[in-house]
């Protein structure tokens, strides 16, 4: 059932030649613009794909535009060897997936408390959470490093084991500890997203759950979480992707354990013996492709869900 105004619009557009041509002009302009922007976004990606399968001969062959003449997997093989691809991939995946799950739980819990379970000082605490977004990570970089380098958890570790401190650098513990206490990569933002979303869920649903005898915890995971699926999808995708691409915390906490983003940065020196600079940049480009390939494949599957869910997330302030 369309509103009268919509009908008026339709009549106006159908029977007025000026309106009609204006509309068509706008459609053409819009299509050109969108196609242009899409091209700009996709062009480097396609270029990377095309370059990745080229052999050395094709680099200097001006007739090769998109489809390589000497199709080869050599670049990928060399790039994989230089980055120790599969072990790095496994590490990256473990870190990203682990932190995503853990920080999803910690952020959602904290956000639920901020949205619905108000207590004395919760406003102040939320202000501090927002403050963590604003403070550049560099400011607390060194103390954070030292915290994990000489980890003692307020002196508790000394009490139990007798050792003065633990060295957690080069393990996955810094990531797990950070994310389980909702202090990982951009966690303030996730708490904010969740809080906004939980606030948008009608109170009546929650109250009826209480009336039916559900406790706070049960209400949270049986009522609130299923309703917050759009927010969950957004946060999961963001946290997975950002953790995957992150090279800052990774290079801070891990120096011996290899993950993709740091491997990629070191790849130039790993390829050092390659004399041909153009070929080397080609290999680096293949490395970039290898880093992003899992994400792109992941995105192909979740993009529909993501694009839909984002609109309903209400990141809106």
């Amino acid at each position, binding site marked *: 059932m369309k509103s009268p105004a919509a009908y*008026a619009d339709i009549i106006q557009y159908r029977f007025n030649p000026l309106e009609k041509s204006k509309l068509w002009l706008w459609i053409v302009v819009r299509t050109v613009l*969108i196609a242009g922007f899409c091209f700009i976004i996709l062009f480097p990606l396609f270029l990377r794909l095309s370059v990745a399968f*080229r052999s050395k001969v094709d680099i200097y062959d001006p*007739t090769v535009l998109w489809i390589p003449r000497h199709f080869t997997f050599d670049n990928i093989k060399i790039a994989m060897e230089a980055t120790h691809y599969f072990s790095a991939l496994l590490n990256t995946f473990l870190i990203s997936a682990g932190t995503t799950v853990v920080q999803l739980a910690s952020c959602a819990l*904290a956000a639920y408390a901020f949205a619905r379970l108000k*207590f004395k000082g919760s406003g102040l605490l939320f202000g501090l959470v927002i403050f*963590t977004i604003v403070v550049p990570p560099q400011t607390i970089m060194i103390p954070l*490093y030292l915290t994990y380098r000489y980890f003692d958890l307020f002196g508790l570790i000394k009490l139990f084991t007798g050792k003065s401190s633990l060295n957690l650098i080069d393990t996955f513990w810094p990531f797990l500890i950070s994310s389980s206490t909702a202090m990982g990569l951009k966690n303030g933002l996730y708490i904010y997203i969740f809080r906004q979303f939980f606030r948008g869920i009608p109170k009546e649903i929650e109250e009826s759950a209480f009336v039916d005898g559900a406790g706070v915890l049960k209400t949270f995971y049986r009522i609130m979480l299923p309703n917050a699926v759009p927010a969950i999808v957004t946060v999961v995708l963001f946290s997975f992707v950002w953790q995957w*691409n992150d090279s800052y915390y990774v290079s801070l906490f891990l120096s011996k354990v290899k993950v993709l983003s740091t491997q*990629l940065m070191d790849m130039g020196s790993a390829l050092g013996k390659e004399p041909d600079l153009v070929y080397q940049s080609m290999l680096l480009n293949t490395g970039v492709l290898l880093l992003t390939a899992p994400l792109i494949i992941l995105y192909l599957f979740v993009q529909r869900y993501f694009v839909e869910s984002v609109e309903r997330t209400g990141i809106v302030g």
Partner: protein
Amino acid sequence: MFRKSLTLSQKKQWYGVLFVTPLLLGLVMLFLLPLIQSFRFSLSSIHLVEGGFAVDYKGWSNYSQLFTTNPDYPRRLTESVINMVVNVPIIIIFSLFAAVLLNQKFRGRALARAIFFLPVILASAAIANLDISSFVGGASLSGTGGGEGGGGLLQSFELKKMLTESGLAPVFVNYITGAVDRIYEIISSSGVQILIFLAGLQSVSPALYEASRIEGATGYEIFWKVTFPMMTPLILTNIVYSIIDSFSHNSINSLISETAFKSFEFGQSAAMSWVYFAVVTAILGISTAIISRKVFYYD
């Protein structure tokens, strides 16, 4: 017996406290203490000794050194601030424009949206650190990017000439052509902003548009009188986000890390990061103060 005597709202409060406990722990251990410690470090010199580190207080000399003897710091700081001031307005305008485009109904909208969000996934410091230009240079040797690259260069020359001849001030001309030249950089850093705007556009009530249509407003008027005011709170959010985001990958970060982990001058590096933090806060404060006066809240 004690549990029974709690009212529901008290119980909820206690659950609230329980739910934020991990956050509270993290906030103290991984944020507040490091913050205080970092400030203390910035006032002292630190050396690693066996089984720990020693901190010697030496006053404000770390800060004064930054601006008197350090060759890189002032230059890089101004550089990144200028970059930010140049980029953020372009990013905001572009992302609002793109969000309005993507919000309209047309065939292939889902595909276009999926493509526009792709940069969110591809944006990575590791990729940005690799010199893209060298790669495109290599590719254009083979003739692949040559056509497009040359075309783009030519276009912006023509544009520059045209704009200059039409009497625009050179500052604006350089600004606009600079934006056209860096279109890829801008698109790829405005993914999240487009997303926020799009979510906002969806939440504008259709009744407003309908009413203004009945009153005879044109599309142009509707944008400036309805859409734009409704978007101002999000513009504020996005400006804050863009400023923070633009600071998360710039040359000053690498300088701070290098000072700490290559030359092991922890105190110096902490001082750098505090000056940097002060600058970021000042910029955020000023821009929020200016914009929030113009922000329009519907309810």
